[in-house]
């Protein structure tokens, strides 16, 4: 077993003639919280799509716990222990919050496509959903339709779907995008709690959040990782300041 949760080797992806991911190398160590930053359009979401199986890479390797997963369908990758959230909220809009979460825990609890017992009788599902609702602070909304939730609540549910599947490796794509300052603080606390003991790779723009939560940071610019290191190293890296932060002192502004 490798010490790395995810290892990406020379990963490439092009859409037609356009190269979007241009030879990415990245390691997510087991148990670390790793932030992925980079300007808009750098290819962060595309990289997540490649890892999670939404897109097929053009070339390169992706190892999850040492096992190759590139090009596999999303469900297989979930079974191998990786799950993700989406930048654009991707939930089940016409189902209740509880039903959303039930779907997300069914696989890990082994019920899969069962028709043997009604959901109401599946104690383990109910217990797990109750726990998740509590954790996501959505208990009071359990029977609300997902599309009637407020934006931060929908983001919490989006996060919930990702963590509920029980995978030990998580990819979160801008989980706090579009939130107010106070909502961000609450969301960060939530993320720290639910990802306890798991490996986390997260796209985030808010520098304050990143320097608070990340063990390491990778910087993706134009489809390439130009630097990886601790927050201090990244802060001090002149190439990062040049390419990403624009001016040498931009981080003060963040």
């Amino acid at each position, binding site marked *: 077993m490798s010490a790395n949760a995810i290892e990406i080797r020379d990963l490439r992806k092009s859409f037609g003639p356009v190269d979007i991911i241009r030879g990415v190398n990245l390691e997510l160590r087991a148990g670390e919280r790793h932030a992925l930053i980079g300007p808009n359009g750098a290819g962060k979401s595309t990289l997540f799509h490649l890892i*999670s199986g*939404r897109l097929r890479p053009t070339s390169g390797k992706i190892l999850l716990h040492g096992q190759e997963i590139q090009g596999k*369908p*999303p*469900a297989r990758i*979930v*079974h191998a222990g990786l*799950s*993700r959230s989406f930048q654009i909220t*991707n*939930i*089940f*809009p*016409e*189902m*209740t919050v509880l*039903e959303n979460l*039930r*779907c*997300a825990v*069914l*696989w*890990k609890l082994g*019920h*899969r*496509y*069962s*028709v*043997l*017992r*009604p*959901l*109401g009788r*599946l104690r383990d599902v109910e217990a797990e959903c109750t726990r998740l609702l509590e954790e996501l602070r959505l208990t009071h909304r359990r*029977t*609300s*339709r997902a599309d*009637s939730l407020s934006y931060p609540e929908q983001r919490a549910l989006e996060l919930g*779907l990702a963590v509920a*599947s029980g995978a030990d490796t998580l990819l979160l794509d801008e989980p706090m995008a579009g939130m107010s300052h106070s909502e961000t603080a609450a969301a960060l606390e939530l993320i720290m709690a639910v990802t306890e003991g798991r490996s986390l790779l997260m796209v985030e723009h808010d520098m304050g959040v990143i320097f608070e939560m990340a063990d390491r940071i990778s910087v993706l610019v134009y489809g390439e990782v130009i630097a990886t290191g601790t927050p201090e190293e990244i802060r001090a890296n002149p190439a990062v300041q040049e390419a990403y932060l624009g001016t040498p002192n931009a981080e003060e502004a963040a």
Partner: protein
Amino acid sequence: MTMNAIETARSRPGQTLLPATLPWAAVIAVLFILPLAFPGTAMVSTLNYLGTMAIFALSYNVLLGQTGLLSLGHATFFGLGGFIATHALLGMAEAGWAFPLPLLPLIGGLGAFVLGIFGGWLASGKGGMPFAMITLGLSELVYAAAAIFPSIYGSEEGVSMDRMELGSSFGMDYGSATDIYVIVAVWFVICAAGLKYFTTTPLGLLANAVRDNAERVEFLGFSARRVRMWTYAIAAGVAGIAGSLAAINFEIITVIELGAATSTLVLLMTYIGGTRVFFGPVLGAVVIGLMKVWLSDLTPAWMLYFGLLFIFVVMVAPGGLAGILVGAGAMIRAGRLGPQLPLLAAIGGLGLLSLAGVIMLIELGYRAGLDAALGSQIRILGLPMDAHGLNSWGLAALLALGGALSIRPLLSRLETLQHRLGLKGGDPA
């Protein structure tokens, strides 16, 4: 307008006022009363037909309402179930087996279920348009194959049977329509309960998830294709039961039962009844079934009325008849119907006037065209009219157009009122 009320109602499943068993007791009670209230072979035969179609529509809604799949060939399994049951009966009767007739739908249903697994495997790769197209293609294939295999499908006149050939069982000899009613009623309860149960299982929930967001399901570890395939097979199996019952009821099965017309019929029934309420399709099957039985005696235009009703539901009340009822019920419970009553009554009245105008136009049209040979004089809604008379056409057009135009301002006032009452949220767009 009513959509929002439905959603509110749906979003509070925990707050149902009645215990879950009460509707079922009501269903069973109604099934007991019906043949007593409508005695006579013709009536009971109609009830048998309605029950069969109700099961068929419930099975279709597993696809349309629960999984969000538009099948254009569901009658394939209704018809194949009927053929399988018929051939099973013929074979067993010849072999002299004492197989109880009420269990025959089990054979048709199982056969259709197995074929459904195969068909589902073919059709389920994608949802949406590709699914609709594959189901259309498969059903046309099966239909066209009928001409090639007369030994299975019979020729033009189909395959007939004598349901009494299997002998008596459960104290019935199955000669009378009432005996068949018992079979249909019991199977209706079994199928409805089974499908209701199915909605509460993990697979049933995943079907909803596939309907809402098939891609996300994959990222939770499931294969949307598998979910579609199994729901397709289940729907096929129950349709096969319905088809077997139809075969038993009519003692004949023809290729029409597995053709496009029958597929269309079940789609209309299910959608008009309402796809988001469990018993909606039953309501649709009863309403459309009765229209088919009674209206076809009254007017040559009954198919046209069907089509117009369907378009009306699609455009104005996508929740179907059941959606309207549930919405109204929710409003009453919330005590918000009162203030709307005068407006609703006015709209309803004008709507009826307009409807009368449309009916006159259509009936006059038939008399002027298709049925011109019957003479131009005709009684429509009790009024003597003339298909060649300007007055008749003028009155009809006036009612239809005048009613429709005068409703429009009232509708926008109703909308404002519902806004004020908090029944309507912001624009969903």
